[in-house]
């Protein structure tokens, strides 16, 4: 019968009281604990002996190339362990590695199936294999969502990304864009990528980029994203547009912790082009360079307002295009924004 005692805390195990003494076993013997043979063999009194015989065979069997007689083995163990130096624990060099003995492969693949039911166990096993092997996760991050004060009209910028997937393969999406308050959206793009882990720190990404402003274009994307030595977060991608234009973008960021919550983040971005694209104001070669630094405060890891400054240069032919359009090829942005993820 179930006997429940409700006790006040702490868990008081009753003070030591005399218990029925079984003097045949006046102390608990852990060895009994490790030798379940007796219990297992309740319905066969000889099972224990068979087991021992069995083990005797195993000493001599499949991997026996390196096995000495069991007597010698025991002698060695006794001597070795007795005299072993501190620091040389368990010298296992004389124990051969090898395949398990054949009987280790006997019986059904899954031991519980015959007792619990094959279907029920298969479903349970599939669920558990999923649960203990890293469930797919969703992540969204606004790395930059900011107000940009600058000469002329102030603007805004977003740079967000996220993924859904497992450890090795994910659907990764990215979007960035910017514009002027009072003006129209200058640029906006959306990327949908398949992201595949190619090393401990790097993903290979491939997919499609859709430009949402200007002459709308679609690009094929191939790139890598990950963590470089010294903890630089790097995102580098090449783009091939439906017009045949080839461009590339490399971004790098570094989190420099000043305190546990105050973080300085230098950031660099370079855009490159293989050809002049006059309608987009892009010149061949180095197109634009951005250098910025943002200082954020992590009220929570997930929620961090920041201030910063970013300098953008159009370079070479791109600068010429800008001047022709009456724009300054060099712009300084003073930014205030919010970095968040969930």
């Amino acid at each position, binding site marked *: 019968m*179930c*006997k*429940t*005692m409700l*006790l006040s*805390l*702490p*868990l*008081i*195990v*009753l003070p*030591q009281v005399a*218990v029925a003494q*079984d003097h*045949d076993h*006046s102390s*608990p013997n*852990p060895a009994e*604990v*490790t030798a379940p043979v007796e219990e*297992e*063999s309740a319905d066969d009194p000889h099972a*224990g002996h*068979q*087991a021992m015989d069995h*083990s005797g065979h*195993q*000493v001599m069997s499949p991997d026996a190339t390196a096995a000495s007689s069991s007597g010698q083995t025991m002698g060695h*163990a006794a001597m070795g*362990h*007795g005299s072993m130096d*501190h*620091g040389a*624990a*368990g010298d296992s060099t004389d*124990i051969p590695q090898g395949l*398990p*003995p054949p*009987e280790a492969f006997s019986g059904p693949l899954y031991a*519980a199936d015959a007792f619990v039911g094959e279907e029920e166990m298969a479903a349970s*096993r599939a669920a*558990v294999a999923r*649960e*203990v*092997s*890293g*469930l797919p*996760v969703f*992540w969204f991050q606004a790395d930059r969502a900011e107000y940009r004060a600058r000469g002329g009209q102030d603007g805004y910028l977003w740079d967000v990304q996220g993924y859904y997937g497992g*450890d*090795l393969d994910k659907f990764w999406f990215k979007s960035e864009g910017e514009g002027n308050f009072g003006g129209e959206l200058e640029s906006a793009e959306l990327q949908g990528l398949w992201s595949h882990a190619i090393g401990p*720190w790097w993903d290979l990404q491939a997919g499609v980029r859709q430009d949402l402003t200007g002459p709308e274009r679609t690009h094929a994307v191939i790139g890598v994203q990950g*963590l470089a*030595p*010294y*903890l630089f977060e790097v995102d580098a991608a090449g783009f091939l547009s439906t017009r045949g234009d080839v461009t590339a973008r490399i971004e790098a960021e570094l989190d420099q912790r*000043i305190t*546990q919550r105050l973080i300085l983040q230098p950031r660099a971005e370079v855009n490159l082009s293989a050809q002049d694209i006059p309608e987009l104001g892009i010149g061949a070669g180095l197109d634009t360079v951005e250098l910025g630094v943002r200082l954020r405060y992590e009220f929570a890891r*997930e929620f961090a307002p920041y201030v910063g400054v970013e300098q953008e240069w159009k370079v070479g032919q791109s600068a010429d295009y800008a001047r022709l359009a009456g724009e300054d090829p060099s712009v300084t942005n003073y930014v205030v924004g919010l970095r968040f*993820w969930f």
Partner: protein
Amino acid sequence: MSTNPISIDRRKFLSASAGAASLIGLGHSIPAWATGSHEGALARKGSDVLSGEHLTMTVADARFATGNRHGPAVTVNGSVPGPLVRLREGQNLVVDLLNESSMGTSIHWHGLLVPFLMDGVPGVTMAAVEPGERFRYEFPIRQAGTYWWHAHTLQEPMGHYGPIIIDPAGGDPHQVDRDYVVMLSDWSPIDPHEVMRKLKVGEAPFNYQKTTATDDYPLSGAERRMWARMRMMPTDIADVSAPLYTYLINGHGPEDGLEFAFQPGERVRLRFINGSAMTFFNVRIPGLPMTVISADGQDVRPVEVDEFQIGNAETYDVIVEPTGDAAFAIVAEAMDRSGMGIAMLASQPGAQAGVPPLRDPPLLTMADMGMSHGSSGAAMDHGAMDHGDTSGGEAMGAMNMRHTSLLPPSVVVGPGVDMVSMNPVDRMGDPGIGLDNVGHRVLNYRQLVAANMNRDMRQPTRLKEIHLTGNMERYMWSFDGQKFSAVADDPIRFAFNERVRVKLVNDTMMAHPIHLHGHFFELVNDAPHGHQPLKHTLVVQPGGSAQFDLTANEPGDWAFHCHLIYHMHNGMFQVVTVRPLQGGEG
């Protein structure tokens, strides 16, 4: 001895939840599993005692509150921890598990020798007990000592765990005046699935002890650059810690005022059980030496220490003889020293001892990187580097931390392996991260000697090497580079009664408490012949190795996993099978 603030919280909560229920037209007559919502009564703190041959354990959704934190919980028989199951060696046990919660559940009897079908691991030995269902466990009690039980699902970190004490059939060899369970755990106010997701998508999101430009860590610029170059953190001691966790002793947070009574001069046994999800604890009682008499439920030759580190799922019984002061603080400091669990040994109600402040957080060392002293003679000056020293960063900076050619062919190299230990020396003598030089006696595995002679003293006939692998950045964990999903049909195989030496090599910078179900194994720790200590859970120190000898004498399929629950749930899980299933009759 619960404190008043808690009863106030409970009243507040009960009235609030009753109001919410009536608003949506539901009474409490509909069980939680039927509504699918996670609500329920506020969990009581501490355990009732269940004993006898037929027990009933009922799982329910609940809420838990401690300090200023509150959130969802799971209770068994209404409390966190659940009931203390107190048994007698040699009895039979029947337990009816009733699931009144909203999730699948199970009970695993951690450390008990049971037929494998009674082991309580969904997907391996049973199907999860679904909401509204029941399951009957039935097995004989073949051993004595301190153990515990817990769900083998993500209900465990929510409160689904409790202690087990089995009194020896022949009477207790340890004469004590008082006998207490000290069950350590960590409780998060947010759901385990969400904790796990944040670990995956965030960058060590719960660590607020990282290196910064203004920290006081004894690291040179060169060492800091070395760590950055490796893309790893010397402060990566605990994945989840005090910024999220409240550390509990018997369900009581530090502010909950848990007391253990004693009279000066009494011998008191404290049965420490680490039932936490993700926390190693440094346990000490300032001013009071502890004599360790049992590890993982099995008696060891007494060792007097001032402190010990206890990995997840391990248990240690210690004897203390408090005298002199009116009170002593039991301090269970998280290994990363971000917080602690606290209880008082008090000679009269309300007696308080000073609680020492948290010590400075430790840092990972060269040894934790798998570059121990006395090593392979790679192209660097090991002689100048002491064990536990963090110097030499410049030299390390130039080194490859991922020499996959050092791995045996059994390890599958992929994105899930971010490091290979260059020189994984045996670290059985290590007291645990941060306890190298604390100025007093700290337990290590080499001090454990089985009190009684082991039965099987055969030399192992086979060596099985298993690598512990992972990727901190991606939060992937595995054995031999393979998550459970990749090897669910390829278990680790042992023949019945085979004597095997298992060598665990840790190719990560975290300590992993590795648990084999259904068996005790013997630590290979230089103990006198025949006295290797028996354990069910073994901590493998970062970058190092550890070995155990196993007599595989329990037929069936058994779980084998890291007991850091989010490591297990991200792949560090395997099945060990012992065949033939008929045992010696096969």
